[in-house]
């Protein structure tokens, strides 16, 4: 069975500092990886997906199949980045997601 691990429950950084939210997964096949974000009092929403290879709000994530990781990075954190971030995996061609337990990012002024 697939599993997603986010080792940090809380990550606190200062504005302008680099951010890396860690995500490791276990799955024997070819996964699709996603990052979802939940801002305060808002719905869970898609931030980015590995297939798109895009940068959203300055965030990027690279799938490393050798290390089975999909870490989320941003070079300069902003206060508005403060939120709960979830890494998620789905089997290629399927839609059901397996989520990690989430990391709360706090960006201090």
């Amino acid at each position, binding site marked *: 069975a697939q599993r997603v691990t986010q080792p940090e429950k809380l990550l606190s950084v200062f504005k302008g500092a680099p951010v890396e939210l860690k995500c490791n997964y276990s799955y024997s096949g070819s996964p*699709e990886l996603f990052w*979802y974000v939940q801002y305060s009092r808002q719905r869970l929403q*898609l931030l980015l997906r590995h297939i798109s290879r895009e940068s959203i709000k300055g965030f990027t994530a690279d799938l490393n199949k050798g290390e089975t990781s999909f870490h989320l990075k941003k070079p300069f954190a902003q206060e508005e980045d403060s939120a709960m971030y979830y890494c998620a995996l789905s089997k290629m061609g399927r839609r*059901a*997601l397996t989520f990690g*337990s*989430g990391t709360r990012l706090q960006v201090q002024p």
Partner: protein
Amino acid sequence: EAGVAQSPRYKIIEKRQSVAFWCNPISGHATLYWYQQILGQGPKLLIQFQNNGVVDDSQLPKDRFSAERLKGVDSTLKIQPAKLEDSAVYLCASSQLRQGVFYGYTFGSGTRLTVV
């Protein structure tokens, strides 16, 4: 486009009572999901519908949980009887393919259930 609608937003019940949640997905989204999110954890899939058929209900506790999606649009999730450990946020989501590509879900705002 209108989002995924869920009701009620909050519900408090006593253990052994029954409760039902309602979800209206985005128009045209064929796939609908119910997730359970316990405090401090990530969402966990309970059931996935494709139109009005069940695709995956392997993690649904079928002795007490049931779900239906009549006519392939709205869906209801029911718990009967509720246990204390069912206290959680119940999230509904829907998705579609665009030109054969899956772009992820649109989530509803969730129903927060407290069982006392």
